[in-house]
C-alpha cells in the first residue's frame, strides 16, 4: 500500500514538476486574477448584448427583412473586431498619441499574460472591443430595412477606425476631455450618443422607408413583426448592461462595482415605469414599445452617472429618461426622421440626458472616489461640472455628426446607400441574401411579386 502511494506520488511529480516548487500566489497576483476574471466576465456580458441588439432590431422591423437584420449583426461584429484590432484600439489607447488622437499598438500583439500584475491587455482589449461593437450596432438602427449590404461593410470599417475610437480616446484614453474632467463612466456619450448620431446621419441620408410618411406629411406606423423579440431583447440588454456599467470599474477593488450595478438597476427600472405611465397618460393607452424603449433609455442615461450619483438620483435620472424617450420619439416623427429602432431617442436623447445629469447629480464624494471631475450642481452648488458635461456632449456630438455625414455622404455619392425600391419592397432577405428569414411565410408573397 505504501509502495503504491509512493509510486503514484513520484509519477505525479514527473507529470507536474511545478507542484513540487509551487508557492502560494502573492496578494498582487490574486488581486490581478480577480480583476481579470471580473473584466473578462464583463466583456462576455457586453458581447452578449449583441444578442439583444439582434432581437431588438429584428423584432422592431418587418418579417421580410428578418434574416438580413439579424444576420448582418454577426457579420459586422466580426468585421468590427478585425478593424478594432488592426486600427481602432491604437487610435483609442495607443501609447504614442496626444490629447486628440491615440497612436501605436496597431495590429495589437499583446503580452500573453499580466505584466506587473496589471490587468492583462488582452482582457482590456476584449472589453473595449465589445463596447465598440455595441456602439456600431446602435448605429445600424438608422440604416434598418433599406441600406445595401455593402454599406454595412464599408461603414463598419470607417466607424470602427475613424469615428468611435476618437471619441473613446478623448474621454477614456487620456484625451483632452478626460483632462477636463468629463464624466462618462461607461459611455452614455462615448458609446450611445456616438452610435445614435451615426444612426441619425444614416437615416437622414438614406431617407425614410417606403410608406413611412404620407404625401401630406402624416406618419404611418410601420410595426415591428415580433414584439416578444423586442421585449426579450430589452431583458438581454438589461442583463448585459451589468457588464457594461459595473464592469467599467475594471477592477474588483473594494466592491464598488456592486454599487454601480445597484444604480444601474434603479435607472433602468425608473425608465421602464416612467415610459409606460407617460404613454398611458398622454395617449390613453399604455404603449408596449414605449415601455421597452423606456427601460433602455433608463439604462443609457444611468450609464454615464452610475458611479457618480446617489441612489435617489439614479431613480430620478431613469424616470426622466423614460419620459424623455417618449417625447423624443414623437419629436423625430414630427420632423419626419424615420427612426425604425428608436436609436435617436433611446441612445441619443437619453445619452445626452445621462451625460448632462452628471453635472446636476454627481456628488463630490463619488467624483473623488472615481477620481474624475467634480460634484454636480446639487451637491456642490457649482455649475462647473455641468458645463464640462455640456462641453463634452457638444464636442463629441459635433465630431461624430460631421464625420458621419461626410463619410456617408461620400459613400452615397460614390456607391449609393440604398437598395432599389423593388428590392426594398421585396425585402432585403431576398435582395441581399437570396433567402428569407421566414421562408414558409414569405415564399408565397415573393411569388406574387415576381408574377
Amino acid at each position, binding site marked *: 500500500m505504501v509502495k503504491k502511494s509512493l509510486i503514484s506520488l513520484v509519477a505525479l511529480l514527473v507529470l507536474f514538476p511545478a507542484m513540487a516548487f509551487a508557492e502560494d500566489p502573492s496578494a498582487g497576483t490574486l488581486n490581478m486574477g480577480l480583476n481579470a476574471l471580473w473584466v473578462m466576465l464583463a466583456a462576455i456580458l457586453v458581447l452578449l448584448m449583441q444578442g439583444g441588439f439582434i432581437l431588438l432590431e429584428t423584432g422592431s422591423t418587418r418579417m421580410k427583412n428578418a434574416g438580413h437584420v439579424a444576420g448582418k449583426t454577426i457579420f459586422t461584429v466580426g468585421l468590427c473586431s478585425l478593424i478594432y484590432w488592426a486600427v481602432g484600439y491604437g487610435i483609442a489607447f495607443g501609447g504614442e498619441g496626444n490629447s486628440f488622437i491615440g497612436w501605436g499598438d496597431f495590429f495589437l500583439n499583446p503580452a500573453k499574460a499580466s505584466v506587473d500584475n496589471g490587468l492583462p491587455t488582452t482582457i482590456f482589449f476584449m472589453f473595449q472591443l465589445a463596447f465598440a461593437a455595441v456602439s456600431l450596432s446602435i448605429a445600424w438602427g438608422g440604416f434598418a430595412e433599406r441600406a445595401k449590404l455593402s454599406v454595412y461593410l464599408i461603414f463598419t470599417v470607417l466607424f470602427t477606425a475613424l469615428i468611435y475610437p476618437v471619441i473613446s480616446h478623448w474621454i477614456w484614453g487620456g484625451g483632452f476631455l478626460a483632462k477636463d474632467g468629463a464624466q462618462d463612466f461607461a459611455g452614455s456619450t462615448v458609446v450611445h450618443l456616438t452610435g445614435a448620431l451615426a444612426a441619425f446621419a444614416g437615416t437622414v441620408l438614406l431617407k425614410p422607408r417606403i410608406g413611412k410618411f*404620407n404625401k*401630406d406629411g*402624416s*406618419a*404611418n*406606423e410601420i410595426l415591428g413583426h415580433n414584439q416578444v423579440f423586442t421585449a426579450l431583447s430589452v431583458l438581454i440588454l438589461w442583463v448585459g448592461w451589468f457588464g457594461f456599467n459595473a464592469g467599467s470599474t475594471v477592477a474588483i477593488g473594494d466592491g464598488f462595482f456592486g454599487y454601480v450595478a445597484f444604480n444601474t438597476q434603479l435607472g433602468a427600472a425608473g425608465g421602464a415605469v416612467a415610459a409606460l405611465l407617460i404613454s398611458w*397618460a*398622454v*395617449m*390613453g393607452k399604455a404603449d408596449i414599445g414605449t415601455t421597452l424603449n423606456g427601460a433602455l433609455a433608463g439604462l443609457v442615461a444611468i450609464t454615464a452617472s452610475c458611479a457618480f450619483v446617489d441612489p435617489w438620483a439614479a431613480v430620478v435620472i431613469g424616470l426622466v429618461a423614460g419620459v424623455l424617450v417618449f417625447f423624443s420619439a414623437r419629436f423625430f416623427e414630427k420632423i419626419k426622421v424615420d427612426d425604425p429602432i428608436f436609436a435617436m431617442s433611446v441612445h441619443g436623447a437619453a445619452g445626452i440626458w445621462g451625460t448632462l445629469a452628471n453635472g446636476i447629480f454627481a456628488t463630490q464624494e463619488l467624483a473623488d472616489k472615481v477620481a474624475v471631475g467634480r460634484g454636480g450642481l446639487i451637491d456642490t452648488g457649482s455649475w462647473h461640472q455641468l458645463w464640462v458635461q455640456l462641453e463634452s456632449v457638444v464636442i463629441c456630438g459635433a465630431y461624430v455628426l460631421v464625420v458621419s455625414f461626410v463619410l456617408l455622404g461620400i459613400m452615397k455619392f460614390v456607391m449609393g446607400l440604398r437598395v432599389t425600391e423593388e428590392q426594398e419592397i421585396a425585402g432585403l432577405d431576398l435582395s441581399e441574401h437570396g433567402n428569407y428569414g421566414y421562408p414558409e411565410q414569405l415564399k408565397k408573397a415573393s411569388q406574387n411579386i415576381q408574377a
Partner: protein
Amino acid sequence: MTDLGWQQLLQSISNADNAAGLRRIRESVHDIMISRLPQQQTEPFYGELNDVHDAMVRRCIWLAQKELARLGKGNPPVPFAYLLFGSGGRMEQTLLSDQDSGMIYADPQNEADAVHCRDYFELLGKETVQLLLMAGYPLCEGNVLSSNPDWCSSASVWKARLGEWFREPAWEAVRYLLIVADSRCVYGSAELHADMMSHFYGDILSSPLIVRRMLDNTMKHKVLLNVFGQLLKEQYGADAGSLDIKYGAYIPMVNAVRMLAIEANLRETSTLGRIRLLEQAGVVTAEDAREWMQTFRLFMRLRMMTTEKLEGGQFSTNGKLSARKLSKEMAEELKSGLKLGKKLQRRVYRHTMGRL
C-alpha cells in the same frame, strides 16, 4: 329651402316608383343638407334628415310589398312592424348611415300559417334591404338586417330570443340587448313593437347581472381625452391628427345616456329625448340635463362635419374629424364637452353599481 319645398321633397319620396328614383332624391337631399349644415341648428337639422331617411325606408317597404304581390306572394298575412336599430332607431342618422333593421310579425294561428309567414316576411325583408341598398344605404356589417332570419321573426320567437339573451350574460347577448334597447318602429304595427319592449323592460329590471354586463359594454369606448385634458388624436396613417368623433365622443355619450334611460325604464330612443325624460323623471337635475344636451348637440354637429365629399361626387365618412376643420374655439368647446362626457361615464358607473 322653404317648408313648402321640403314638403314637396318628402312627397316625392313617397311617390317614387323605384330604387333609382329614390337614389336620385337622396343625392339631392345630400346636397341640400350639406349646404344647410353651416347655418341650421343641430336638432332641427337631424330631425328633418331623419324624416327623410324614415320616408325612404317606408317607401322601400311599400315598394317591396308591391313587388311581392306582383310575384304572386300576396299581401302580408299578419300585421308586422319594421324596426330600425342603431342611429336609425335613435333618430340620429347622419347623411351616410347604413342599414340596421329588423322585423317583428304577429304570431301565426297554426303551423301552416307559420311557414307561410316565415317565407313571406323573409322575402319582404330581403326585398326591402335590397331596395334600400340600391337607394344608397349600405348594409350593416354585423348583419343586423331584416333580411337576416335572426332579426326577422314572430312576436313569440322574438320574446323567446330576448329571454335567451337575458339568461345568457355573454358579451354577444348583451350587445344584442343593447341594440334592441334603441329599436324604433318605423312602419307597421306599433303595438307589436311596444309589446316586445314591455317584455324587454320587464326582464331587464329583474336581471341585475345583465345590467352589470351592459355597464361593461357601455363603458367600452373611452372618451378622447388624456389625463392632462388634451385631445387624443389619431397618431398614424392618412387620418393622423384627426379626432375619432364617433367612437371617442358621440358613442360614449349615447351609451352612457342609454344606460341611465334603461335603468329608469324610459322607452324613448333618441339621446336628447332620453335626457329630457331623465330630467322629468328626476334622475338628473335641470342644470345637468341642459349641459348634457348642449354637449350632445355639439357632438352631433361635429359628427356631421366628418362627412367628406369625394372626387366622384360621392360622400363618405369614417367618423373622424380632421383637425384642420376644427377651429380653436370649437376645440376648446369639444374639450369641455369631452370632460363632461367623462364625468357622465363616471356618474353612470357609480349610479349603476350603486343600484346593483
